[in-house]
């Protein structure tokens, strides 16, 4: 598992608890709560997933399912308080990020793991040039001179295909279009050559033609650099185009985990199945869309048993009382549904 190091950023493993054969990132049984005025919101209730180098894991879910909170916990940017990490582990190359010092965290951020945010306009600082914001980390973290950092920033903007990079590097975020800002964010996250990139809804704010450009770019860079990629999104179309594996989240749990082809062809959880059926399609005009009745549960009061049971067409008595565990459905496939085998067997 060789790590490409384009900018010669040095070895991250020196004198630390890095285990060379461990998966790139492993989240294990993560529980996160938010202590709010109205009570304790159970935002993550035992989330586990892993990503290897060069692999794309898509985390799919609706708003409030906990997909972004997981990412924030991995990056160590949760607002604590109100957030409290109750239990679990986040291992980056075997090293538990929840146990390491703040200094080590900072060291890993950027070089080990980096993140691309959804809203590039608010993620970029409006009073500094785009170049300055890319160069800052190069200078602080790698000790580059201003001149070298500028040169590298231009290269990075070039890499993400921003035309006229040498001129653009001196401009401010407001002078960039939406697509270019997102590219600049990607350039920034790649500056320290991370091994794992977390992209949180990277194209949600963009138009389809620009979305296609950005997804192509991310995919290409990922393959080139053998990066692990966690793509957080609610868009079932984007997921189908790029994901190797998919984790579907609902009410702070991963309800289904499968490779992309199996999940779309033969969903193993009623929630996944319902999501796929409620999607309007480009290739045919339907009459009535299938809907999922009701609303996602409030995280302040998650229903007992299976959290999806009030909305589930298959729900029976045991779903109301018994929390479904992971049902194995073949290689690397799991589903948290009492009737998972039945559901998959139906097709």
């Amino acid at each position, binding site marked *: 598992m060789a790590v490409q190091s384009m900018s010669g950023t040095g070895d991250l493993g020196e004198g630390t608890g890095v285990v060379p054969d461990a998966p790139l990132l492993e989240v294990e049984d993560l529980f996160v709560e938010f202590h709010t005025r109205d009570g304790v919101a159970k935002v993550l209730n035992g989330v586990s997933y892993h990503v290897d180098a060069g692999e794309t894991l898509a985390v799919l879910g609706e708003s409030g399912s906990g997909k972004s909170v997981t990412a924030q916990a991995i990056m160590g940017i949760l607002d604590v308080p109100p957030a409290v990490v109750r239990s679990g582990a986040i291992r980056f190359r075997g090293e538990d990020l929840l146990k390491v010092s703040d200094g080590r965290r900072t060291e890993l951020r950027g070089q080990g793991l980096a993140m691309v945010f959804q809203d590039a306009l608010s993620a970029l600082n409006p009073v500094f040039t785009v170049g300055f914001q890319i160069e800052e980390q190069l200078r602080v973290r790698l000790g580059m001179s201003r001149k070298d950092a500028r040169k590298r920033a231009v290269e990075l903007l070039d890499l993400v295909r921003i*035309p006229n990079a040498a001129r653009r590097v001196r401009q401010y975020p407001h002078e960039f279009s939406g697509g270019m800002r997102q590219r600049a964010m990607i350039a920034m996250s790649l500056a320290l050559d991370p091994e794992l990139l977390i992209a949180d809804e990277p194209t949600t704010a963009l*138009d389809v033609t620009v979305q*296609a450009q950005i997804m192509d770019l991310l995919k290409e860079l990922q393959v080139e650099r053998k990066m692990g990629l966690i793509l957080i999104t609610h868009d079932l179309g984007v997921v189908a185009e790029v994901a190797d594996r998919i984790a579907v989240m609902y009410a702070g749990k991963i309800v289904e985990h499968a490779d992309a082809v199996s999940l779309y062809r033969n969903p193993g959880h009623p929630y996944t199945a319902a999501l796929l059926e409620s999607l309007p399609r480009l290739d045919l005009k339907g009459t009535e869309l299938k809907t999922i009745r009701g609303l996602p549960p409030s995280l302040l009061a998650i229903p007992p048993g299976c959290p999806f049971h009030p909305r589930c067409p298959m729900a029976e008595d045991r779903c109301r009382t018994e929390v479904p565990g992971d049902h194995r459905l073949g290689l690397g496939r799991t589903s948290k549904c009492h009737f998972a085998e039945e559901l998959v067997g139906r097709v």
Partner: protein
Amino acid sequence: MSETVSERAATEPAPGEAILEVRDLVKHFPVRVGVLFKHVIGQVRAVDGVSFELRRGETLGVVGESGCGKSTLAQVLMRLEPPTSGTALYKGRDMFAMRGAELRKLRRSIQIVLQDPYTSLNPRMTVGDIVGEPFDIHPEVAPKGERRAKVRELLDVVGLNPEHINRYPHQFSGGQRQRIGIARALALRPEIIICDEPVSALDVSIQAQVMNLLGDLQSEFGLSYVFIAHDLSVVRHLSDRVAVMYLGKIVEIGTEDEIYSHPTHPYTQALLSAVPVADPTVRGQRQVIRLEGDVPSPVDPPSGCRFRTRCWKAQDVCAEEVPELVTRVAGHPSACHFAEERSVVP
């Protein structure tokens, strides 16, 4: 054999009569500079010569990327912004010339559902006040004593619990808030509802509920929709006819089948091919037309065809001559000198 849109409409038997006819609608916003001595240095050509008609009971989808002028079009049709030029006939009468009582009546007939259910509802008003407010402005629709009952009825129609009439918007989820917005739009029994991205802020499972509701209301009340959205799948699902906009102009217009199965304008083709397909087995096999760069600024749009700067078919003529929106191939109008049919949706 090129016929214009209006000729085509006149010769074809329409399934419903035209309730709204928009002709060469133009909306420019001046770009001003200076603090003390303001002067105009240019025009944002948000809508630049748009023509279409909306028939009774049908849904006209308007698709396009951000900045193509689709929301400005909605504002002009709502008479929230005066047009720079052009006309719109509502049942044969010029909408923009209406004044006084006639204008009040028009405002009852055309309503809007806005995109963001979080900012389009006043947080300090109860649901009852929000949905009932149109009755304060148009008291002739419902006498004071009947208003609460009317509001309850409306809440029931859009699938909300009438008992929640005294709740505030923050007590509702996004999808429910959008239902409140729809109830408000329905209050005055309009004939036309302009839906400006009504489902784009909602989650997939909620989006389907609201789309079904819009469909049900249309058949129940015989509403005509102008359905503005950037999501091509959503537009296909709800629309009878579709107009594709780019930089303030309609580049292609036709029935839902004509646009999705037989697109002829390169922009329509690129737009359709860029939509990700929710099927991992076709990954990499689908032909995707990748457009270069971004949409040019509407302050200084390209000469001739506005799409030519990103078009792979562009030739000299495209820079010199503005392509008319006329039928060249495939039986529906397309504003491209080199229009040809190409199937891009699998």
